[in-house]
């Protein structure tokens, strides 16, 4: 490679590294703003501001969904398997909302540590499978539970 091209290539590489570092530092500094939601551990640790509109995300705890028979009010707990936050919501939930599924809720934490949501979105995970396979897996895991083993969810 002739010297001029070598020089140009060096400049291009410096340009790329420079921009990469600049953008990397900026996004690192802004990471809490880029994060779409707080997870329950952060809320439990008091990292999330009280009475400010924020998003909370995690998995709907199994057996925690309580529906008010008189209205559209729903209360459930969102967990990341370290901590959990009680969430209260009035409105129609997305189709994919279910116990054991991921959600992202938008709202405020009130003084009593309860998250009052005005929007609940379902968060889908990266796993896809045909219904028959899902049924078979569920049967298998129930069989395991009876045998005294507790199934640990891998992720949400």
């Amino acid at each position, binding site marked *: 490679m002739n010297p001029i091209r070598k020089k*140009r290539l060096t400049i291009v590489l410096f340009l790329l590294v420079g921009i990469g570092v600049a953008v990397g530092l900026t996004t690192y500094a802004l990471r809490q703003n880029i*994060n779409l*939601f707080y997870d329950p551990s952060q809320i439990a640790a008091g990292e999330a501001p009280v009475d400010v509109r924020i998003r909370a995300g995690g998995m709907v705890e199994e057996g925690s969904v309580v529906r008010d028979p008189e209205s559209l009010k729903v209360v459930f707990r969102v967990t990341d398997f370290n901590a959990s936050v009680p969430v209260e919501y009035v409105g129609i939930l*997305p189709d994919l909302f279910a116990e054991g599924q991921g959600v992202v809720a938008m709202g405020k934490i009130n003084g009593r540590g309860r998250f009052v949501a005005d929007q609940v*979105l379902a968060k*889908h*995970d990266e796993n896809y*499978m045909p*219904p028959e396979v899902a*049924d078979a897996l569920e049967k298998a895991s129930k069989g395991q539970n009876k045998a005294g083993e507790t199934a640990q969810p891998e992720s949400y």
Partner: protein
Amino acid sequence: MWQFFHKLGSPKWFYGIATRLMPWLLVAGVLLLLAGIVWGLAFAPKDYLQGNSYRIIFIHVPTAFLAQSVYIMMAVAAVVTLVWRMKLADVFVKAVAPVGLVLTFLALFTGAVWGKPTWGTWWIWDARLTSMLILLFLYGGVIALDRAINDEKSAARAVAVLVLVGVVNIPIIKYSVEWWNTLHQPATFKLTEKPSMPAEMWVPLLLAVLGLYLIFGWLACLRMQTEILVREQRTRWVKDLVMAGRF
């Protein structure tokens, strides 16, 4: 190797190769894409949670994948433009930028259509969606900057620098779902692990991605040929070609 590289820089040589390559790219691409889409939309099993609405991935994933690959290809061409001043590299960037724009738009659009029934919203400002929107604007910026500068050489350099600056966005798009909390789910396909989806779903998806790649190749050749004809209109070989009516 260097000889091949310099040959690649000759518009006339490329024009000839492209003419021979294009029918193959088009036929193979259309066949693969059709097979993937028909298999995916009509025959693949439905998802246990999302039902049939997940089938939009057979369009969403190929377009999103290509939108990012095209940008990486443009960045490589931009380096060649800046370091070797090869005209053909610049022709490539100009020819494929609008294609990338359309692909990015399709990825965003199909994602929004899928997001409404799945998440409950068309749009959310999470890191994945926002960085993809930035990619759309980058493509738009590349096209606009190229049109704004009349001088061919200055335009080529300015566009190449913009493309290179924008390439930092690509790893951000790719890893946004891992670095930050997002509503968009993490990648189903990873190089190191088995896909978290059965073969009867990922095989048609793979076919559709490959098919779209080949069709992109065809479209890139076609658009580059047009750009070459415009730029080289005063040369002997283009005049001969036009006189012979073969273009």
